[in-house]
């Protein structure tokens, strides 16, 4: 009796699950849902034009594929992976961080850090060890100083 009840409950749950999947499948994805994914993809033909705005027939077909997959209940990551598997990593907006691609992310910050280091060294060399910064200026005097400087600069032929 108890076993029968469990079986019935199991069958019921299964039916519920099937019904909900079917419902999800029947729901047609909106253009906005399609575009949200298409926005992050680039087709190999129309290079550098995001898929969501590309007017070509081929890109229209890609969007239809996205709609189809969404309708079949695929997630965003799965759909992206599908296009990567089919056409290579170039369909992604940025290179995946693997192998040589690491360079694209590492070089700019390294170069910037190198530049900052060079600048720091140059600044140290330019600053004489004995020279302190100018003595603090009292707030009252600052406007006069400013006026003097302004006048001096205006007098200079620029």
């Amino acid at each position, binding site marked *: 009796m108890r076993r029968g009840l469990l079986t019935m409950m199991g069958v019921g749950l299964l039916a519920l699950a099937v019904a909900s999947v079917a419902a999800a499948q029947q729901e047609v994805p*909106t*253009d*906005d849902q399609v*575009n949200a994914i298409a926005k992050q993809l*680039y087709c*190999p033909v129309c*290079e*550098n*034009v*995001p898929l969501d*705005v590309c*007017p070509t027939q081929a890109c*229209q077909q890609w969007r239809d594929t996205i709609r189809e997959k969404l309708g079949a209940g695929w997630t965003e990551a799965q759909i992206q992976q599908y296009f990567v598997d089919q056409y*290579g*990593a*170039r*369909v*992604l*907006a*940025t*290179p995946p961080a693997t*192998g*040589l*691609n690491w*360079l*694209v992310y590492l*070089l*700019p910050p390294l*170069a*910037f850090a190198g*530049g*900052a280091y060079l*600048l720091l060294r140059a*600044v140290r060399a*330019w*600053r*004489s060890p004995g*020279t302190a*910064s*100018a*003595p*603090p*200026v009292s*707030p009252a005097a*600052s*406007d006069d*100083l*400013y*006026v003097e*400087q*302004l*006048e001096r*600069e*205006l007098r200079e*032929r*620029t």
Partner: protein
Amino acid sequence: MIAQVGYFILLLSFGLALYGAAAAGYGGWRGRPALVESGRRAMLLTFPMLTAASLVLIYLLVSGSFQVEYVASVTSRSMPNYLKVTALWGGQAGSLLFWSWLMAAFATAASARRWDRDRELLPWVILVTMGTLAFFLSLVVFFENPFLRLWQTAGGQQVTALFQPRGTAPLVPFDGNGLNPLLRHPGMIIHPPMLYLGFVAFVIPFAFAIAALVTRRSDDRWIRITRRWTLFAWLFLSLGLILGMRWAYDVLGWGGYWGWDPVEVAALLPWLVGTPFLHSVIVQEKRGMLKQWNMVLIILTYSSVILATFLTRSGVFSSVHAFAQSAIGPMFFAFIGLTFAASLGLLISRWDGLRSENRLDSMFSREALFLLQNLIFMGIYIVCLWGILFPLISELFTGQKVTVGPPFYERATGPLWGMLLLLMGVAPLSVYGRASWQRLGTALWKPAAASLLVLAALWIGGMRNPAALLAGWLGGLVLAVTVYEFWRGARARHQRHGENFFVALGRLAARNRRRYGGYIIHIGVVLMAIGIIGIEIFQTETQGQLAVGEQLTLGRYVVTYDGLTQFDDPNERDRNVARAVVSVYRDGRPLGELYPRRDFYYAAQQSMTIPGVRSSLEDDLYVLLVDWEQIAQQGATFKIYHNPLVNYVWLGGLVFIFGTLVAAWPEREPGRERRRAPTRAAVVEA
């Protein structure tokens, strides 16, 4: 016949440029003024010669001489005459000729000065400008000849040659392919010439820099002579970029103006290195510092100009911009490599003579802040250069193609742009030389307090996005500092000279145009930043298929589909237009109709999506016709973008250009200045 004449003129110009460079260089080296003068005359001849060659090509374009390959590839019978003229730069060969013509014009203009004490620079200026011109003309003469004619062999094969090959007959197509429809937009018609004006004008400061290096002059004379050239180049480069953005917004139909397309990024490169150059030369003028660094910057600017011309013209990236395909890549790479190595070698050999005349007294001085600004600009430059080169490197070494798209550039450069805004707020209040943080703080606290009010207002207005709040605060700081600077200067003059406040303001700006023009440019940048933040952070979009009478909703806007007509344009028969009519409502109030359309060009087999846009200072509603049912004409798909604040980009662009004009406007003649000087001194003493 006339095409052959055009080619002959080109050939002569090439010879003249080569001779001019060689004669001036040799004459300068061996100290023979007569040879230098001969080189100068050769240079002066290149301008009228290339003007004639360009006029010949324009004549062929306008007269519809389709037997010339270039004419057939970029024009068609249905094109109006003004478009036929602009087809001069519509294709590869023509645009290279146009580049050369500008180079000859600028070289002539730059040499038309009283050389007096700078005569020693002349030979080397001629060598650099004519060397550059000879390179570009070599491309036109040997690889991309715009005067080649079409011929047909007995077997029906089409060949191109200047003179009739044996066994062929002349081929005169009935009509040409027409200019790429994407280029038939007012913004695009003047966008390339503006960019080229900027590119080519940067060659002049580079030529003077090289001349200064060769002649071992360590003073700032080359900078003073070319200051206006630099500003002129920068003005047109900026204008070219802004026009390109507007063109993309109006014509490309993706709801934005900057897609970080490699060709866009390539055109930005010279600007990214020219802008710090523009700032750091001031430090050399005022303090005799950064001499070596300024040389590095102008060498990089020149190399970036050649690189950008190559990248935008060669089709090395197949993207929306790269209309032209050709095999001139190796030539360009060799030229860029050679000139870069030679310039750098020359700089290194003169390195010790360019030591700083002053010490860096404080980290809070104007020169230190300019250095920091230089570092940040170089950071953005490296991100951009690397972003466009990496896909090529990846393909070369691994065979794997990759896309480096907007997310890369936005994440990498976003914080750097923010830091630049912060510097733009702080640096104008710093002083040269012996600065201190107390003095900077004293000058800064009032505008900083005002900028906090902007932050508070944004918060109270309901803004919670951290990036927008930060950008709003920084923009507020720059605005407050700039207004404060104008006010402080005008008040000082008002108190000193008893001038009316507005007179004082006007005279202040007129007497130091570069400084106050620069401040106006900063205001332009803030306005543009407001627009960029608006569209980057707050843009929303929706898309849907509608039957007539149905509607799409986006935020407060409702768009109703009223109908669609499709017809051949009676004025331009090559074009078929599908034009939709939609009504726009905001909060239920009707705002009028928009007409998004799709133009199809038969000859080019290409379509263009023209948005219907409702613009206000607050936002743009940007409607695109994505698709429609060809037969029933009942259903159509629309995409709608809501672009908040986007018009501040254009408004800021106008202010930006105005500021540059103020900074670049010629000063009074020095003679008049001297005569008037005692009067002013008398006023000061009184």
